[in-house]
């Protein structure tokens, strides 16, 4: 039988290992800091309650992502999520990038937030969590070839957006 101490230890290990990536993922799917924090909190609250049902530690990451995605879907039932004005999403960074790099990064961020979820979801699962195409297919319930197509198109759309905005120089209008 799992003791309380053992249970707490398992939970804290999960939180330490996955909370950062889950927060990033939540932030990119909802574009709202407060909602992202709520989603992660609620995800781990549900995980804590259901921890005994997690038999395979190797499946923990996918398990937590599934809980978070469902929780995000449920926010539409409990309340209408706050409207996210993509043009006004500003992510504060403390790192020191060159101005050009910083501009490019901000354009990419706007592009990611504007991507249709069918392209953004697989891209985030791959780039944030390091999922393989097969794992993404399982997580999203689509075929591996559909995942490959969506990942390719997601990147193409971001590249086009980057080139378009880079050429027209409308960076400042975004913020």
């Amino acid at each position, binding site marked *: 039988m799992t003791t309380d101490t053992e*249970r*707490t230890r398992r*939970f*804290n290990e999960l*939180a*330490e290992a996955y*909370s*950062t990536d889950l*927060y*990033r993922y939540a*932030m*990119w799917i909802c574009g709202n800091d407060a909602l992202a*924090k709520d989603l*992660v*909190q609620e995800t*781990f*609250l549900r995980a*804590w*309650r259901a921890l005994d049902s997690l038999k395979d530690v190797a499946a923990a990451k996918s398990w937590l992502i*599934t809980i978070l*995605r*469902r929780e*995000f*879907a*449920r926010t*539409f*039932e409990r309340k*209408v999520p706050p409207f996210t004005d993509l043009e006004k999403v500003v*992510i504060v*960074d*403390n790192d020191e*990038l060159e101005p050009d*790099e910083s501009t*490019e*990064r901000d354009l*990419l*961020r706007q592009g*990611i937030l504007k991507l249709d979820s069918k392209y953004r979801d697989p891209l*985030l699962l*791959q*780039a*944030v969590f*390091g999922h393989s*195409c097969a794992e993404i297919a399982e*997580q*999203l*319930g*689509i075929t591996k070839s559909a*995942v*490959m*197509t969506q*990942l*390719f198109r997601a*990147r*193409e759309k*971001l*590249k086009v957006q980057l080139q378009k905005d880079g050429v027209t120089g409308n960076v400042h209008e975004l913020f």
Partner: protein
Amino acid sequence: MSMNFSEFKKLIGADPGNRDPETLRARHSSPEFEAAAVEADVFEAKLQTALHIQPPADLFDQLKKISQQPVRQRNWVPLALAASLLVFVSAAGLVWKQSRTWDSVESYVADHYSHDGSDMTANATDYLSDQDISKILAKLDARADQELAGRIKLIKFCPTPDGRGAHMVVSTDQGPVTVFYMPKTQVTDGEMVEFDQMHALLVSLEHGSAAIIGEQSQNLENLVSTLRVSLKTGLVDV
């Protein structure tokens, strides 16, 4: 057989971290391939930089507090009562099922919903595992993608005019609605059925059809595209 340039571009565009032997060989097979690979790596580095956002500094400490909460102990008395009720409802349902035939989809929808629709909606819980959902849909050669599965609060087999189907309660932004999935029944797409202050929207799917049922104040149209995209029907190998 080695891959051509177009295949290679698509592969690294979808999976730039791919390091299987064939892809690695292709990367170094010609200057054109090498340049494309470098370009993909550069873009990937930019993407990683863009995705890298810092979580709140106190996030982990906040999460650790969750583990200080007591885990709820299951109270078996309500479960026993619920089980008894389930046995009763199942028995009543069996009698109902065996005694019914319908001369039209419209009468089926109204009769079925009147039988247990509102009870099922009231009893729909917040927790359904993927396994619970896929176990039932797989028997009907169907599968729900995450967008739909994450919103299903209740699912069970149910009779339809042409054999077995599924009765689901699905969350929407206007509250829960009922969906009857009828794998072998054809309907007139977009037809509305009204009964007992409820209304139902009939939807043709790739294989079979569905009826979305809600109160007359609820807009049912919003669920149509989700059903069409996320309910994969007519699958023989799920």
